[in-house]
């Protein structure tokens, strides 16, 4: 029964929880389907959204592939126990479980917190689903605005970043749900947000699109194509600028940080760095995992419209 002990805490730098996530994926590749894998989080003292959202998604991914894997949630330390309770770890909240008029009341519970719960939003296309989802996501956005108390330009920027990432999940993941988790670090001056799915990789999306299927044949090429804004939307509408504009708005506009991971490749984009990293093939994310660090003070003259293209 292999047990993987998860980290007790994380450093503040953007990369540390992400490195630990990759370490975990690396560790899991040593396990077999015959094992009962336990991710031991009992001794956790402080966690981080970039790491904690990945845990239930990893469990789902591995279960889909026939693995037996659980996260131990009998936390010893009260602080993390309370946090995990409020963010509804591991399953999050799913809007279909609540009446629409109940969303604001539900999210009211969080208006004095510095975080929102794990949001599991449906990706379906029927009218009923889209109405529920739109209302729910709007309530989530409004809650974030309230929690973070941002200026107008930052509110617009924040919503743009979240909506672009959420819409990419809706249009490309081809899975039942997308997921979102956010935390506001007031003393540190930023909001950390993670938006993820465990559906198609970026490569899967391009593979299903005749225009690029012969040219985009690796996860690295798919990442490059996505970052360049090569659209997989049809009708000759050359859209597909969501990722590139989001990155520019966040890094150049706000001096924030952007991370996008799919397959065995990720892109890290800050004011100093804009690299694509190719990992060993077994360090794999089935789907797309986006992490944003958004400063809460915008540079003078920041206008999100300058980045919409």
């Amino acid at each position, binding site marked *: 029964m292999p047990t993987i002990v998860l980290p007790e805490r994380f450093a503040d*730098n953007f*990369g540390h929880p992400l490195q630990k996530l990759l370490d975990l994926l690396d560790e899991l590749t040593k396990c077999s389907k015959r094992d009962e894998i336990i991710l031991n989080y009992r001794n956790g003292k402080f966690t981080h959204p970039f790491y904690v959202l990945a845990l239930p998604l990893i469990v789902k991914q591995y279960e889909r592939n026939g693995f037996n894997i659980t996260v131990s949630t009998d936390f010893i330390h009260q602080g993390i126990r309370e946090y995990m309770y409020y963010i509804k770890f591991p399953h999050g909240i799913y809007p279909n479980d609540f009446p629409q008029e109940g969303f604001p009341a539900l999210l009211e519970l969080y208006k004095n917190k510095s975080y929102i719960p794990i949001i599991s939003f449906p990706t379906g296309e029927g009218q009923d689903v889209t109405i529920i989802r739109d209302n729910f996501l709007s309530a989530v956005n409004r809650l974030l605005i309230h929690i973070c108390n941002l200026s107008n330009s930052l509110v617009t920027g924040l919503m743009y970043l979240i909506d672009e990432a959420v819409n990419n999940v809706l249009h490309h993941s081809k899975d039942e749900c997308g997921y979102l988790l956010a935390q506001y670090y007031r003393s540190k001056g930023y909001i950390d947000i993670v938006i993820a799915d465990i559906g198609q990789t970026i490569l899967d999306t391009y593979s299903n699109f005749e225009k690029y299927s012969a040219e985009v044949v690796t996860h690295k090429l798919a990442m490059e194509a996505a970052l*360049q804004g090569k659209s997989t939307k049809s009708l000759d509408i050359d859209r597909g600028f969501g990722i590139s504009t989001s990155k520019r708005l966040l890094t150049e506009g706000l001096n924030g940080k952007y991370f996008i991971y799919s397959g065995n490749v990720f892109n890290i984009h800050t004011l100093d760095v804009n690299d*694509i*990293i*190719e990992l060993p093939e077994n360090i794999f994310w089935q789907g797309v995992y986006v992490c944003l660090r958004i400063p809460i003070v915008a540079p003078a003259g920041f206008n999100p419209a300058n980045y919409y293209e």
Partner: protein
Amino acid sequence: MVTSEIKISTILPPTLDTREAATRLVKVIKEESKNLNKLEIDFSGIIFMSRSFADQFHKDLYTSEQSLDMVFKNASLDIIEMLRAVSNTQTKRKAFKKTYQVFSFNTISQLEDISFSW
């Protein structure tokens, strides 16, 4: 997809010090890259890159019209930072292929110093 790998340590010493060494490496890269889609440059065993080497490497590599998909593999944080620093000072040279530098690693632990710096 035809891929080849160049292990620098088989061509040059563990410290990459001179402009001439950079020119020799780029010559090998260009020879190797004919009829290829992708080339991996493996920095395993390389412990240092001088600014002169990095500058010449960038100049010789990125003024070519040749289009090649190139990945820097197993480069240490110091080497990545040197390549990046030199790249940021090059304003008049054409981009070799794209905006991004691409790195790959054989093990996750090689990424630790790099991810800690973000």
